[in-house]
């Protein structure tokens, strides 16, 4: 789905944004993506034991 231009973003208001967001979401549900990234917080302990002040 082609997204709105920057101008449309800025001038189109909430309706434009909602339509775009809904369209993106629908597209995302229609077909599995090739990749999935999840921006997530991690426990600090993911760092290895060796990670010390250098």
């Amino acid at each position, binding site marked *: 789905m082609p997204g709105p231009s920057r101008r449309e973003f800025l001038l189109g208001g909430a309706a434009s944004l909602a339509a775009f967001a809904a369209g993106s979401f629908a597209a995302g549900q229609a077909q599995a993506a090739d990749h999935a*990234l999840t*921006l997530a917080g991690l426990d600090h302990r993911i760092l290895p034991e060796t990670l010390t002040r250098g």
Partner: protein
Amino acid sequence: MMSFSPDGPPPVLRFKQGVKTTIDVTNALQEASVVHWHGLRIANRMDGVPYLTQYPIEAGQTFRYAFTPPDAGTFWYHPHCNTLEQMAWGLTGVLVVEEAQDPGFDRDLPLNIRDFRLGGDGQFIDFFKPRNAARGGTYGTVSSVNWQVDPVYDLEAGSLVRLRLAVTDVTRVGAYEIAGAEAQVIALDSNPLPVPLPASGLILAPGQRADIALRVPDDESEEVRLVLNRPNGAKTMARFRPKGSSLHRDLRELKPLPPNPVAEPDLENAEILDFVFGWSPEGDAPQSSQCGSLGYTFWSINRVAWPGDLPGPFDPLARLKLGKSYILRLRNETPNDHPIHLHGVSFKLLRSNKRELPPLVTDTALLRSQETMEVALVADNPGDWAFHCHVIEHQKTGLAGFLRIGD
């Protein structure tokens, strides 16, 4: 910490040149974000810059990025919203676009090179100091490769390995070398070199990458090191140990990397555009938004400080006609380094008032102290393209703007 994975460091993303890919980015943070694909010449609305190309991805939302990478090479990805904090917490990952034809390596090893700012107790400390942001930037305290300190990689003895160095740090400019083995730099910033360079004295700034062809020694008793030469001494960043009986490979067996399809600028008819990178003429703090502000303005481009990641509208630094060639004259009037990154378009290094420049194609040019550099490009990708310093404190305190290509 933050990651692009719920249970580990950011994954290496692998795409194929010329093949469309889709990525669903789900924001499980407590704050907004976006993801920028550094170096990829893709459609503007997929570039991941808040308000300029898309609205921020709110907490809990998913945004689908879809694009076809035209170029092969080593790239990386990171947020462009609350950029300093989110990158400092861990959000930087390596992205590989594979060539259509395998150049003949036995192994491909991406190396995500970055610092973390930790205190003596291993906890995060303040991500920047204002007095440093107004100078060279605030350095991390722990240097890492792939989220490890001095990791050791076992490689087949006598094999050919493609090391993909990606400096994803927010501040550090450093000189790297491969010690203890035959090695050649074969590509910089995702673009193959016409002639390989020695893998020593290789200066890489935030945002820059280098592909190195490593010939692993034959004997298990030997050790290869990736070394970062810093003003206060050399530091081993990673080690590579030969394992097993030698494969007896030779660097000359590798096929040359094909050049990426970047248009050649028409220098005779190119228009010259001037950009001056300097301090801010004012002192007003950028306005805060959901994509954050550091609370200070120190820097400017053409005497204008970026007002912050806001809906705008703002004026571009320059308007470029679609398809036309341009020479950008980049003048650093400060005593500090500024790795200048242009989104969406690659450019060619032409000349400098300070040094000889190789004819490199890049997306991130390191401007040294008081250096003026001329670069050339074809404005062949329409849209509003962010143009900024990749020392993130500089970017977030004014040294940012955008170029508009097309109407």
